[in-house]
């Protein structure tokens, strides 16, 4: 648990010496600030992984198999003698890369497709049928199917989860664009002869930012969970890269004698996903006061 208290300090330090606006943010959106702090800490852990008292996460050491957590091995060692603390710390990288990678790619692609379908009836009819079909396949299942086609690699995991998430972003953006089209300010812009690209960049696109940003954070959280699921069942991140999902899968068979093999990566995964969700809820409340009251 040493690592967690260290993380908290890393995230909490700026707030202590902060000017007034940070204190104001903490007062108004405490959960969002907490989520942001945990995320910053996770990013720090991912970047500084080699300097946080870790050893090579893949180094085998049969003589030190299944040591319980101790001063020397903070989180214990697994059945191959690998240091669990190092594996968990390095696993942060995979989750953050997949979470933010998928969030960025799927919102970018979904935004582009959604804008086109929202503004063009012919494209709309065709593309949305395809999207409806893809949405009929539960996203984890879709990602699993795509992973079955390719070999296990981090890039393929990001690609597979992105494909599964794009239809939802597309549907959201299309919905926003369809409502915007009927709004007086867009009609006025069209009537006054605004060109297509100017209409898009000045009037439509800025109004899609808020909902897409909120959706993006939720996609980030769900992508982290999906990656962990894929790796857990053996269809995700390859075994030579430690990720929280495949570390837990390794410890699965020994769970009853050495529960720490599963518990530590589980805590890290849940905390990180919780942090992203808290930031998402905070963003939603801040960007859409109408929704904030309802949800």
């Amino acid at each position, binding site marked *: 648990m040493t690592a967690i208290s260290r993380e908290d300090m890393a995230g909490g330090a700026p707030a202590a010496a902060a000017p007034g606006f940070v204190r104001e943010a903490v007062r108004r959106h405490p959960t969002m600030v907490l989520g942001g702090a945990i995320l910053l800490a996770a990013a720090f852990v991912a970047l500084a992984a080699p300097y946080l008292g870790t050893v090579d996460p893949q180094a085998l050491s049969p003589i030190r198999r299944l040591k319980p957590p101790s001063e020397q091995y903070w989180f214990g060692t697994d059945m191959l003698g690998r240091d669990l603390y190092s594996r968990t710390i390095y696993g942060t990288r995979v989750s953050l890369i997949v979470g933010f990678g998928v969030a960025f790619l799927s919102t970018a692609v979904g935004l582009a497709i959604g804008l086109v379908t929202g503004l063009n009836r012919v494209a709309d009819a065709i593309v949305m*049928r395809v999207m409806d*079909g893809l949405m*009929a396949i539960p996203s984890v299942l879709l990602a*699993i199917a795509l992973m079955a086609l390719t070999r296990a690699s981090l890039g393929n995991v990001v690609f597979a989860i992105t494909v599964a998430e794009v239809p939802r972003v597309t549907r959201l953006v299309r919905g926003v664009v369809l409502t915007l089209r009927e709004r007086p300010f867009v009609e006025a812009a069209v009537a006054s002869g605004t060109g297509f690209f100017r209409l898009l960049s000045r009037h439509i696109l800025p109004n899609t930012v808020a909902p897409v940003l909120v959706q993006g954070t939720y996609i980030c959280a769900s992508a982290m969970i999906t990656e*962990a699921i894929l790796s857990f*069942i053996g269809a995700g991140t390859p075994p030579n890269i430690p990720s929280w999902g495949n570390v837990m899968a390794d410890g699965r068979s020994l769970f009853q004698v050495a529960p720490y093999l599963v*518990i530590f990566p589980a805590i890290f995964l849940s905390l990180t996903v919780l942090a992203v*969700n808290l930031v998402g809820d905070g963003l939603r409340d801040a960007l859409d006061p109408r929704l904030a009251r309802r949800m």
Partner: protein
Amino acid sequence: MIAYIIRRLIATVPVMGVVAIFVFSLLYIAPGDPAAVIAGDLATPQDIARIHAQLGLDEPFLARFGRWLWGVLHGDLGISIFTNLPVTRLIAQRLEPTAVLTIATMIVAIAVAIPIGVVAAWKAGSWIDRAVMGFAVLGFSLPAFVLAYLLILVFAVELGWLPVQGYVSFREGVVPFLRHLVLPSLTLGFIYAALIARITRASMLEVLSQDYIRTAQAKGLATRDVLIGHALKNAAVPIVTVIGIGVALLISGVIVTETVFAIPGLGRLTVDAILRRDYPIIQGVILLFSGVFVLVNLLVDISYTLLDPRVRY
């Protein structure tokens, strides 16, 4: 009403069509030659060519897709590469545990989530409301397998109240059947219940601010009658919608839950098929799960006409 149902039914055809094209393409672009796998290690190139011709693997994409779809529509999902058994038979063998687990979970989750969502909205801002919202955020943040291990650690390993894993059919006794079902069902239902409770609360809050609720209260109706008779009835459409959409969570969850609890259901079949790259099984499972998902949402669409008489388009 009938016309509406028929229209909704027809609308599912293109959706399932896209699913079918996707699922078929999966096998079409899958690496490896199924003929070589079927022929075995000692096959000559002539053998493989013969099987190619037999299975029609040399025909163009559309011809193969047409023949495959014809088979699917007649209940033929192909032959498993690994076990050489018909996929429909393998699915039928694994159907019971998954169906029992998901349906039981659905019923319990809905029965728990809607009341707590209603109470949270009624007592908005109270500690009950905060607890329900906390539960909802937690539900979205705790991955199913993390929750599964926490439950196993507490209730099976430490307290020893419930079995760690496995599945017992109800034909072998109701008590062991239920004992084996509790932890997997809790695991599977947590996020689903969180989703439903959250939407119930949001939808109820919206309705409770309406004038007719105040009227109902003013004329002296009991709180329970206002909440259930007036408010919940009008808040039902989003709740039912989310019950339908959430089935996707159950399907994803069942894959993980069955893996953790060693339940021999469709989820395990899927995982085993992925690890062995047994594409016909993967195809069959995706078709089945997507079909169920589309069907549930069709039922949800139809239920709108019962819940809201204005829906008659």
